[in-house]
């Protein structure tokens, strides 16, 4: 959605238009849901938290500052709800609910390689991401998945941009160390990586 159109919707929602807010929810629900799911790894909790995040966003809409991206503001609310939830409930590792997994897109460039080796590496990457701290995981998700700048991520985490860079640096180092075991053979490894990146 273009920024100008989004701002108009926000203005209408701030004046109390439920229909305008409905359109905003529809525009952001997938991204916010994916972020919360990666943080909590539980489908039902993810739905609850994502729903609560949107309700809280509507209630606090008058405080939204148009200087910043609406998505950053939404992710800030969702992040804080996730952190509060994780502090109260220790996360229970669950298997992927395959019945709920969406189909891969038609776009060839977005499709992930389907070979057994590539899947293994992809699963290993996500398993390692799950082991990161809340702040590091959030930085990685928002940086790579959402394409957010370190400044924007800093607003979500309520820390300076330089701290976000530190989180990213440490996350990368941890992920590298955790995944080094997967790269048993140089030649094979390069082949895996080449296949995944060009799929």
């Amino acid at each position, binding site marked *: 959605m273009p920024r100008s159109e989004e701002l108009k919707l926000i203005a209408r929602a701030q004046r109390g238009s439920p229909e305008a807010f409905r359109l905003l929810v529809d525009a952001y629900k997938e991204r916010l849901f994916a972020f919360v799911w990666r943080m909590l790894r539980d489908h039902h909790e993810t739905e609850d938290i994502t729903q609560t995040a949107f309700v809280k966003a509507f209630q606090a809409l008058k405080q939204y500052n148009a200087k910043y991206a609406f998505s950053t503001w939404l992710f800030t609310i969702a992040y804080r709800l996730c952190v509060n939830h994780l502090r109260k409930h220790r996360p229970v590792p669950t298997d992927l609910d395959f019945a709920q997994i969406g189909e891969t897109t038609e776009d060839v460039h977005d499709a992930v390689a389907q070979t057994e080796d590539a899947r293994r590496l992809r699963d290993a990457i996500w398993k390692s991401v799950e082991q990161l701290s809340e702040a590091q995981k959030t930085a990685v*998700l928002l940086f790579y*998945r959402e394409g957010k700048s370190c400044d924007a991520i800093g607003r979500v985490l309520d820390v300076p941009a330089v701290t976000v860079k530190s989180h990213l640096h440490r996350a*990368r180092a941890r992920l590298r160390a955790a*995944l080094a075991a997967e790269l048993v053979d140089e030649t094979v490894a390069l082949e895996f990586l080449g296949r995944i990146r060009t799929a």
Partner: protein
Amino acid sequence: MNCSQAEKLFDAYLDDELNGALRLEFDAHLVRCAGCQRMLALLETIGDVVAADHDVPRVAADFVDRVVQDIAVSQQAQLRRQRWRRAVLGVVALQAAAAVAFMWVLPRRQAPRAPAVEATATEYTPTVAVEDLDREALKELVLRRAEDMAFEWHAAGVELTSNFKDMLRYANLMVPDEVLKNSEGFAVNPLLGIFQALVPGEAPEPEPVVPDSDVHSI
């Protein structure tokens, strides 16, 4: 450039912040070093995998409807709270108005206050100039006279004044003008204020105990 130096530049390279001569050195090292190539490729792959995240469960079809419904419910709850708050405030305001009216009417029905009694010097020692006294004597005099006056005026039903000049006249104390001026701020007990102005830095003794009935206001 060696591997250790190159590794330190991985973040800058991945964040697209590596430029100029340093970038050239880094690229030159990568061409020669399979180990660093592998590490960098792994980090780039991590980013690509996270960015192309497909393994997320689908959002329920009625998700948006549920959010809108939640919002409607919370708005109704807020409206109910506001109405309740207004009702409570209304009752409190009525009670406060009734209390104020009661307090306004009641004093007018009481017996008229006794006329102000002009204190005389008959019960006290003659007028004393404070400069003639030493510290202890002055302290004792001020406190004793304050205590005596409080009892006397309470008995006469007279409202004590916070006017220093009147207090001094009643207590038959003469103080220099500048001391009088410096004591203007001591509304609690003017005589103690004068004492403090005369002997700065020394805390006066506690005020004498007055009778139960709180008629006076020093």
